[in-house]
Structure formats: structure tokens, C-alpha cells
């Protein structure tokens, strides 16, 4: 099966907002699952994680579903085509020294062998740490702020979304070229 165009995928994602409200009065959001996993596993008692994470099991079922759904789509609904990004993006990314355009992520950057190299540490470990810390401090991610919050006309979500983008632009135009060159 070919990839789905943006005008199909966008509404399908937006429908998650009313669907979760209707099914259980739940706000669509993914990053809070990180907090619940921390609350379930924290080795020391911390006030931030001192609540009954089992009351939020629905959110963990949601992300477990995401893992499962992605498994199904990748293995049984995938024609193995390369991601059809624009030619400009291809040449910009090639200029960064990336050579692999197979699959969903460049294997030059994301593989187990390079995990403990400077590049691997920055792209996977530091990058991941910033995603976790940042989303929790901001109180949401792309789903919670940019989709749910903006759908609900929340000014705080607009501020957060603008900052997500400013951060992404700083990485894209300054930090990533600095690291890769």
C-alpha cells in the first residue's frame, strides 16, 4: 500500500480529539505517558511522581496501541517505497553528509553501532532527553499542545507550538549542521 497523502492523514489524526473525548472524556496527548511510566518505575519517591499512575492506564494502553499499530502498518501495509521528500530536502540533507535515504530514518544517524559515538549520543540520547524534559516542562507535545490545545483555541498552546518550532529551526539551521560537519 502506498503512503497516505497529507489531506487524508490530517483529518484522521484530528478525529482523535473528539474520539477520545467521546470514548472516555480523555484529552488527546501522548507525552504524559512518559510521566506515568516514570511514576510506575521511579526508584526514589518524588513529589512529581507521587500519584496513582494506574488511574491513567488508558494513556498507557493508547501508546501500547501506537506501537502495535505501527508494527501492523510497517509489516503488512507497506510497499517499501522511499519517503518521497522534496528534491531540495534531499540535496540539503546530502550536503550534511547523509547518504542513506532508505526507510523512514537515515541509518547513517540512527543505528545501534553509532549509539556511543558523539553523533549517536547527540541525535539519540541527548535528543531524546530534550524531548522528554521539554515536553513535560511545557506541559505537552505536538498532540497535546499543537493539535488538542490549538483545536481548543488555547493561547498557552500557541506559545508552546511557536517555541517548538523556534527550537526545531535552531537545531535544523545551526546545531545539526554544526554537529555533522
Amino acid at each position, binding site marked *: 500500500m502506498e503512503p497516505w497523502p497529507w489531506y487524508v492523514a490530517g483529518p484522521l489524526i484530528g478525529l482523535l480529539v473528539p474520539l477520545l473525548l467521546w470514548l472516555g472524556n480523555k484529552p488527546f496527548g501522548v507525552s504524559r505517558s512518559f510521566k506515568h511510566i516514570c511514576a510506575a518505575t521511579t526508584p526514589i519517591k518524588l513529589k512529581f511522581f507521587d500519584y496513582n499512575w494506574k488511574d491513567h492506564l488508558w494513556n498507557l494502553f493508547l501508546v501500547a496501541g501506537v506501537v502495535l499499530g505501527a508494527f501492523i502498518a510497517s509489516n503488512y501495509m507497506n510497499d517499501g517505497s522511499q519517503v518521497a521528500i522534496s528534491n531540495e530536502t534531499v540535496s540539503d540533507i546530502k550536503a550534511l553528509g547523509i547518504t542513506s535515504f532508505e526507510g523512514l530514518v537515515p541509518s547513517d544517524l540512527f543505528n545501534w553501532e553509532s549509539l556511543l559515538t558523539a553523533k549517536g549520543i547527540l541525535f*539519540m540520547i541527548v535528543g531524546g532527553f530534550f524531548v522528554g524534559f521539554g515536553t513535560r516542562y511545557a506541559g505537552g507535545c505536538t498532540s497535546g499542545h499543537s493539535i488538542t490545545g490549538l483545536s481548543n483555541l488555547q493561547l498557552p498552546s500557541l506559545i508552546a507550538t511557536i*517555541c517548538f518550532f523556534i*527550537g526545531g529551526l535552531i537545531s535544523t539551521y545551526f546545531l545539526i549542521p554544526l554537529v555533522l560537519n
Partner: protein
Amino acid sequence: MKNIKFLIVGIYFGIVLVKSEVISWFRIQEMFRFQDIHMYGIIGLAIVTGAISLFIIKKIQMKSVDGEKIVMKPKKIHPGLVIGGLMFGLGWAFTGACPGPIYALIGGGTSVFIVVLLSALAGVWVYGLIKKWLPH
């Protein structure tokens, strides 16, 4: 098991994330370089769809399946929106994945994203550890 329905919703979300290539590092680069409509179209139409749905839900005072009144908590303005928002943005461009896609990449077989997930959990845990010293 009242939570099974959320597992099914998650499966649906995971399939859409993969089939729309939202979980692709390449697509995120394309977005931050403003070189295609793909990601903007997805996020934009998701917001429009969500907004129209919420407008209708409020207008007809729709109830949830359990008969509850549907409520959405308003969000607060605080410095974390800016500081945390910038931090997430920096990490988003490096990993090419926001939280949903991190889970989806793992399910899709890019197993090294387990490390990205563990790092994100470490980030949240450290936030919990130092929260009281951060401006809120």
C-alpha cells in the same frame, strides 16, 4: 477491560503515523526547511478537524459514552511553555520524532528508538527531580 478501546484507538493512531510518514526524520527535516506542504497540511488539517469537532461537541453539549459531560481543562501560561517548548523543539529536530512517533518507530522496527524512549523517560524523571527549582 475498559481500557481495550484505548488500545484500539492507539492502533489506529499508530497506523496513521506510519502511513502518513509523520514518523520520518526526513519529513521533519523537510518541515523545518519549509520545503513541502506535507507536515503543515497534516498538522493544519488535524487542528481544523479537532476545532470543528470541539465546536460541535460544545454546541450540542455532547456527552461521552458513559453519559458524562465532556470537559476540557484550560491550559495555563507559564515560563515552561517557552523554556520547555524550546527544549522539545531542539530535540524534535535531532531525533526527528515527537513522543507519538517515538513509540511508532519502535513498533515499526527501528529498534534503536528504544534508546530514544529511555532517554526521554530520563528527561521526564530529571524534570520531576528538579521541578521545584525551575520557574513555573
